[in-house]
């Protein structure tokens, strides 16, 4: 009876995992098929290995430049988000000053303002200050992360207070305590925010779609969207492009999946 139940549970999970993985597998297989055989004999695992599809896709749409832009923009968003969130989270977790709670809840409250409400004025502002078609426009408005501040604050709160008190007795400044005690002890939370911000920056679509029009500033997501508009029926090429668009995110996720998954659940519910 028990072993019977166990087998069923494994089967359910395996079937689910298969459904999750199938579209990816199908995409990879298609990306390696010769163009002429796009719809021929639907085999799930790749049989032909037409790697030239990848070269064709990359050449026909300047994916190299999309890639450079996305990597640069995502890294800047990540660094900025992590640094600014850590700085803001520290006083909320550790210092006592008037207005602390007000600001903390004000920051959290901004989570409720949806992006689409601000998107029109944001666009107007970016246009007015002449930032359309710049990398700045893709990065600077995206640096503030109430989620990041909340996540790091929750983590900082779990670090024993005695540690900073001891440092303070030794004459350490607040900045020293933050830099040399709090941050080194918060590596797991910083890692999860890093991965989270990178994925957010990489997958962002609506904002880059609006503020960049010139191909030299196009990011991977917008690039794929344009590519599928132009070459929508050349599936093996489109699939090759799409595979390359998700590879960086998958690598980063697999490298840090433990921290990422833990980090996701710290911020959410345990208030």
């Amino acid at each position: 009876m028990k072993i019977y139940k166990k087998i069923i549970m494994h089967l359910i999970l395996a079937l689910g995992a298969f459904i999750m993985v199938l579209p990816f597998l199908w995409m990879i297989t298609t990306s390696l098929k010769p163009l002429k055989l796009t719809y021929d004999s639907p085999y799930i695992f790749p049989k032909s290995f037409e790697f030239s599809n990848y070269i064709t896709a990359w050449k026909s749409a300047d994916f190299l430049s999309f890639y450079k832009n996305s990597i640069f923009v995502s890294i800047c968003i990540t660094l900025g988000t992590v640094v600014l969130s850590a700085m803001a989270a520290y006083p909320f977790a550790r210092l006592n000053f008037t207005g602390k709670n007000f600001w903390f809840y004000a920051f959290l409250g901004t989570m409720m303002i949806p992006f689409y409400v601000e998107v029109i004025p944001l666009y107007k502002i970016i246009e007015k200050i002449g930032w359309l078609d710049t990398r700045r426009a893709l990065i600077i408005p995206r640096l503030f992360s109430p989620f990041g501040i909340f996540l790091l604050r929750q983590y900082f709160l779990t670090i024993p207070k005695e540690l900073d008190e001891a440092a303070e007795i030794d004459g350490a400044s607040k900045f020293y305590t933050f830099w040399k005690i709090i941050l080194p002890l918060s590596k797991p939370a910083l890692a999860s925010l890093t991965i989270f911000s990178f994925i957010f920056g990489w997958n962002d679509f609506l904002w880059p779609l609006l503020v960049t029009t010139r191909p030299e500033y196009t990011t991977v997501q917008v690039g794929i969207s344009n590519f599928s508009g132009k070459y929508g029926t050349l599936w093996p090429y489109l699939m090759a492009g799409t595979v390359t668009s998700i590879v960086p995110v998958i690598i980063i996720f697999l490298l840090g999946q433990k921290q990422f998954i833990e980090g996701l659940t710290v911020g959410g519910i345990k208030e």
Partner: protein
Amino acid sequence: MPQKRGKPSYAKKDAVWGYLFVLPAMILIAVWIIYPMIFAFRLSFMNFKYLTPEKARYVGFANYIRAFSDDTFKKALTNTFKYSLIVVPVQTIISLLLALVCNSRIKGKTFFKVAYYIPSITSALAVGTMFKFLFNQQGIINRFLSNFGFHSVSWFEDPSYALPLCMIMAIWSSVGGGMILFLAGLQDIPSSVIEAAQVDGANGFQRFLKIILPLLRPTIFFAVVTGIIGTLQVFDQAYIVSRGSGGPLDSTMTVVLYIYNKGFRTTNANMGYPSALAFLLFAIIFTLTLIQKKFFDKGAESY
């Protein structure tokens, strides 16, 4: 009464450092969130033509009133609600079931977690492209169904299938995230509670209904609220499926996609109108969240 402070010099020092650390974030909020928000609110009461900003004038509630007689907006609102009403319960139930199965003593837990979560980190664009190919006229789904005598359907070009497919895409890509959320919630339930129920002779289903479900209430609340907030703002999926047009026949037109169309795809658009639509959607989401909070708080009292 004046408050007594033990170490006023420390308090002052804390304040200086505190504001210094928070300042960059405050500036970002002020410039990129608060100011645009106020700007958007003002816009929503204005007739503000994109190419003739000098002719901008206040029109009171005209933009809001216009929304109520705009058939495409009504269609977009209906689509968005349909989408939310189906996606949220289905994704919540599937994630909860997966979490329950994954939480029992099974092998390869990490593998399953990762496999289920990968769709969540994949961009909506990539997911959309994959599904478009799967559900293509000559795609694998049609081939599979033809074995059972079904005619091939051009799913994404058919007004009755395009929106359900967006829903399937959303559910497929979000169950992994929900599962991880519920797993964390399940791990917080002390095993002693469940063992005690076992000793009292409660079977698996009773334990689930009487113990696990009530204790998971905050997690379920969180999943449902964030699910509703997220689904009512759906944009990426609808954009990729229809290339931004909301077609076929507005069947994938969602509220945010309509805002985008009215704001950025219409020549010399009145920016006030999409701004008003954005605030209407915001008001709907805000009200729904408050109602749910009431509903869940009330339920919690009875335990």
